[in-house]
């Protein structure tokens, strides 16, 4: 197999991580909604935690996107 082909396959494989992150981020917001609809009065105070969780979960998808971009454009 040519090295260039392996590079593109690797970049594609790295993007699987972004799919997993989509599940994670959806979980963060989904669970927040479940909790918020059960106890709407407590929901407002947890909005900072929500965005912290979102940013922490999203970061891992960004890591895999970074690997894909590095493979495509830098290496």
């Amino acid at each position, binding site marked *: 197999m040519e090295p260039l082909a392996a590079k593109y396959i690797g970049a594609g494989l790295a993007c699987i991580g972004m799919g997993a992150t989509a599940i994670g981020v959806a979980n963060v917001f989904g669970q927040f909604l479940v909790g918020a609809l059960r106890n709407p009065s407590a929901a407002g105070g947890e909005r900072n935690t929500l*965005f912290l969780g979102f*940013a*922490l979960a*999203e970061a891992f998808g960004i890591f895999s*996107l970074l690997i894909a*971009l590095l493979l495509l*454009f830098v290496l």
Partner: protein
Amino acid sequence: MVANPIEQFEIHPIFRIANIAGHEIYFTNSGAYMLAAVVLTAALMLGPTAARRLVPSRMQSVAELSYEFITNMIRSAAGEHGLKFFPLVFSLFMFVLFANIVGLVPYTFSVTSQIVITAALALLVFFTVIIHGFWQHGLHFLKLFAPSGVPILILPMIVIIEILSFFARPISHSVRLFANILAGHITLKLVAGFVVAIGSLGAFGWLAATLPLVFTVALFALELLVAFLQAYVFAILTCIYLNDSLHPSH
């Protein structure tokens, strides 16, 4: 053709400062935008608050709000004792926030998209935690690695995991900020490149190019959110790490 999305991260020298031990020291565009972030922060914090009005003007309340925002963040994540680190956390937050936002202006350079900058900031926090922890608690700081209430049989394994995760912190702390900004800018440039590439196809291209154009605007809004959110996450993780050096025995 689509422009090279990596080009925007290149560092260009602006003028030469000195030659120290055979190394050429330049003032680069990176340094210029770091300076811009510092100047903007100083202008926001010093300018409107100079009058010290009891009923604040609009810009003064922005400065006061950001001050209160960080105070509350430190208080909730690191407790009252954490407030002595307010200057560190506040300057980190404001620097990262302004560097992110200045970098979003078209044709500018994003300082936080360079791993060397974010790694330096993360290592600053890392060594502050270690030095303050040992200075304040002596060898009791090492209790950080041995959580209380763990059965003695699995304690060695827990200690190894805790030590590893402690030393992985500066890596994840710096890469999170750097990768978010880098990937965001590359995505923006790629999608904006589609507008040009599709638009050059003629009348039908003009019509079809509206789709990536709308997407670019939406992405830009997301990037504004990310610019603030990553500064917030960087600051709150700093607070959480500092909490370990303030209260090492969980």
